[in-house]
């Protein structure tokens, strides 16, 4: 079976054609770098994504601070993770790299702050 992928690793967005049999990757064409093949393998077995969101901050110069995952999580857990992130409230100041939730839902990824918000 032939499957088409658009690689999301970098902005080149290579169109990759993969030949797959019984879930096994037979061949990959179209990737302009090594990461493309790794991406297709990952997509076939365990597709993962990182996500970004924001959380409310009390007493900050902004009402919100942006956060992201530091490593990808299984795609089918995105909305579970969003729910956890949505429940968080922080107190200013917060700084880039602060860990908001460690090992979220046991998925091996941390939610980290991506913006500095000082106290009002």
């Amino acid at each position, binding site marked *: 079976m032939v499957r088409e992928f*658009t*690689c*999301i690793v*970098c*902005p080149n*967005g290579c*169109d990759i054609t993969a030949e797959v049999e019984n879930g096994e990757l037979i061949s990959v064409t*179209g990737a*302009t770098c090594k990461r493309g093949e790794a991406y297709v393998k990952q997509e076939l077995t365990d597709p993962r*994504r*990182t*996500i*970004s*969101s*924001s959380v*409310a901050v009390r007493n900050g110069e*902004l*009402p*919100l601070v*942006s*956060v*992201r995952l530091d490593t990808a999580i299984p*795609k089918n857990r*995105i*909305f579970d993770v*969003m729910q956890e992130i949505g429940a968080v409230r922080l107190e200013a100041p917060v700084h*880039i790299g602060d860990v908001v939730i460690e090992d979220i839902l046991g998925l091996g990824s941390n939610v980290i702050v*991506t*913006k*500095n918000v000082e106290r009002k």
Partner: protein
Amino acid sequence: MEKREVVIIGGGPAGLAAAVELYKKGIQDVLIVEREKAMGGILRQCIHDGFGLTRFKTTLSGPEYAQRFIDEVQTYRIPYRIDTTVLYVSSDKVVTIASAKGLEKIQAKAVILTMGCRERTRGALGIPGERPAGVFTAGVAQAYMNLYNRMVGKEVVILGSGDIGMIMARRLTLEGAHVQAVFEIQPIPSGLPRNIEQCLNDYGIPLYLSHTITAIHGKERVTGVTISEVDAQMKPIPGTEKEYACDTVILSVGLIPENELSIDAGVPLDTRTRGAVVDEFFQTEKEGFFAAGNVLHVHDLVDFVSLEAEKLADGVAEYVRGGRLPECPIELKTDRNVNHTVPQKISGQRDVNVTMRVNRKFENAVIVLRQGGEVIAKKSMKKALPAEMIQIGLKKEAIRGNQEIEVSVEW
């Protein structure tokens, strides 16, 4: 009157990178003028990741990417003014600024134009129908959600397949809204393929090409839109109308370089890029005025904005020290498949990186630069899309005389 060697208009990614690079080159009598409360420009609201893959070899969110430059500005104590708007720049480089301190004038030796873009609006498209609340450009919706903690709507239709629109489709979905579809009037998407994959396909959001909104309905708030298919001339086809009920319409229909200040200063613009005509030093046709980033031409990635502004700093440093830059008599001309190039003219004395965009999709194409019929540079591409900026290195040894250079696509 206050005097500065360099005044930088706009503290977004281009202005920040230019300031830091100038400092490193020993040009330190610089002032960055930023109208917002904080530096960082549009990156402040771009909380998604994917920034920095080229410039820093890692993936960062917009605010993190901006902070790397802001930290440098602060470490080097490069002067900047926030909450300060440039009202006017005269052709002899007197910059008039307004802030809580009142009106001030600054005489600059060189002016760097890094004002970025504005979004094309509903008014510019002339979409018929009512004028209810609930119609937002993608960047405005992004600011509401990511800076002000305000959700913009629940049932959403997106017009235009620009990258910000697709990124907002994902953002809205993650925050609990239902994004029904993205409609694109052109036969090809205007954003990057990876965003179609990770922002639309991942969430089952359909993208309809050759479709547009032909009416917006609702009195107080949007209640729905009429969608029509369009023909090859992008004219709606009668009989193809479909109604979609929604409370929100997001527009992601293009960016326009914000060049009002440039025009007032007498800087000539290129009608194709809507940015200034520049040479390889990023000097405009008005001596001592330089431009880089989205105010010069719309970029696909911020990494290239930073790299371009750093390159600009080389030219500005040379200009400030020497009072002039080499002549750039060699013009770059484009064939009908190439939308534009930046720079539009070069000296021929130095290696140069030519940036361009194609007008339509090509497969297995070769971008060719010719001078007097002879090939002086080329680049093979598996696919060339209008959504991406193409960059070609041109070596000075290859350049012959001052004849114009023809840039074309062959396939």
